[in-house]
């Protein structure tokens, strides 16, 4: 990964305390490279989601600062889109209306005509493979379909940075595997590096992280901090066969060994 260009995101000395005493994250430094797919793994309670919320601007760090393109992050914005674990789709709106929500009410709403919006939503519906279901309501969709809708809604605003908090956790294993591949394709795995969007993906699944990421950040808990950053040198585009690659297994084992003790302690 070329490290000469300025980092897309820079976390400096990030700390987060809750209720005055609970330290969720402590002195975390991280630089996220533009266009990379970064995964964060770690045991429960290590602060992964907290960090994501802070990058998204939904929460404020107790210490330190987060910068994007050199500018301090002060709050949520359309430049950093978020995909939540339970999708957070608006139940009273159809798939189409959900996807188009940001285009309709967001900061760039005035510049987009209704026809243009309709066209963009249509393209996204096709991209995520929901053609035929665009008039349905979230409660009529399966888990996988809801996740695709959430992904489309995330992409509609064309954010610089995609933040995803365990988006595939609630799905069954088969759907998850399929969606992993699709996620990479939609993210732009086949496009040149400069055209890819920066993505930060939180997951519990180590093999998921290794399959998807360019780099994997391993965190540990109590207090939440970065233990290691692992480069994933596997070639892109990632074919399904890469999962049986010996390098894949080695990386998975390396990451697991870093987390293992903490994970055992967490369930003790």
């Amino acid at each position: 990964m070329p490290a000469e260009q300025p980092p897309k995101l820079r976390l400096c000395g990030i700390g987060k305390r809750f209720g005055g005493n609970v330290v969720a994250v402590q002195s975390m430094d991280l630089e996220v490279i533009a266009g990379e797919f970064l995964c964060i793994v770690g045991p429960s309670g290590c602060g992964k989601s907290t960090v994501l919320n802070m990058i998204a601007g939904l929460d404020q760090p107790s210490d330190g600062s987060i910068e994007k393109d050199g500018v301090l992050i002060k709050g949520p914005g359309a430049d950093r889109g978020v995909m939540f674990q339970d999708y957070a789709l608006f139940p009273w709106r159809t798939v189409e209306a959900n996807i188009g929500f940001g285009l309709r009410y967001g900061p760039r709403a005035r510049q987009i005509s209704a026809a243009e919006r309709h066209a963009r939503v249509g393209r996204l519906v096709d991209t995520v493979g929901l053609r035929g279901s665009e008039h349905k309501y979230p409660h009529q969709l399966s888990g996988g379909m809801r996740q695709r809708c959430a992904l489309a809604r995330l992409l509609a605003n064309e954010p610089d940075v995609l933040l995803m908090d365990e988006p595939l956790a609630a799905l069954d294993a088969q759907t998850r595997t399929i969606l992993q591949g699709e996620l990479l394709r939609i993210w732009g795995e086949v496009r040149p590096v400069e055209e890819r969007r920066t993505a930060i993906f939180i997951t519990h699944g180590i093999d998921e992280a290794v399959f998807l990421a360019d780099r994997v950040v391993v965190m540990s808990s109590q207090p939440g901090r970065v233990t290691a950053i692992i480069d994933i040198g596997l070639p892109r585009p990632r074919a399904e066969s890469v999962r049986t690659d010996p390098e894949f297994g080695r990386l998975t084992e390396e990451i697991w060994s870093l987390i293992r003790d903490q994970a055992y302690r967490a369930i003790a």
Partner: protein
Amino acid sequence: MSARHFRSMVLPVVLVVLWQAWAMTLPAKSAAPSPAHVVKEFGALVSSGALPSATVQSLGRVVLGFVLGAMLGITTGALMGAFRSVHRNLDPIIETFRPVAAIAILPMVILWCGTGLLAAVAIVGYAAFFPLVINTAHGVSHVDRRLVQAALTMGVKPSTILRTVLLPAALPSIFVGARLAMGIAWTAIIAAELAVGAKAGGPGGSGGLGEMMFVDYSYSVDLNGIVVCMIVVGIVSLLIDRGFRAAERRLLAWRL
């Protein structure tokens, strides 16, 4: 006819029959109401147009007052639900007035607005306001935070979020409030019409079902007429409730 239907009709039918039998044992000049006379009176009142017009008049007042109370209640409730500071400031005032029922402020309202449409709308609006403001505030403040977060991360402004996320998401609660409010409003208007009819003068007064009930009592001692009005009050109340529930089911189909 299933056994269940039969069982559910047994008691009402038995009671009506007993009532009729009791009424027939009374002297012919007795004023006591009987089912047969009630039915006859119902027919008379309907064909004379008195019953339908009184019902429409009462309903019209209720609808107008409800709309007023709803506009105020939902707006205030939405603001209270979305902003804790608004809630903190307004809640004491609302909780102070809540125990004061609409009928209790009727004398003051009569002093201010007379006994016409304005007074009716004011009373009904007051009655409808409270269930709506409380339920709306509750619904809005209990919207899943994640939906708001999702909108924030799409760059939507808080004022827009209030309109496009909080209100739709709170619609189930608002509907419950509306159904309760309408029921309370209907009771309030009947009470108000009764009171005005009782105090402000005889026939040709303010009109409406409540007034008709009182006139039937004081000027013609027509108990059968009173019973007819009571039944109509009950039927309208039931229809309002069922109507709202049906609307809830249809409009809120996205709820699971």
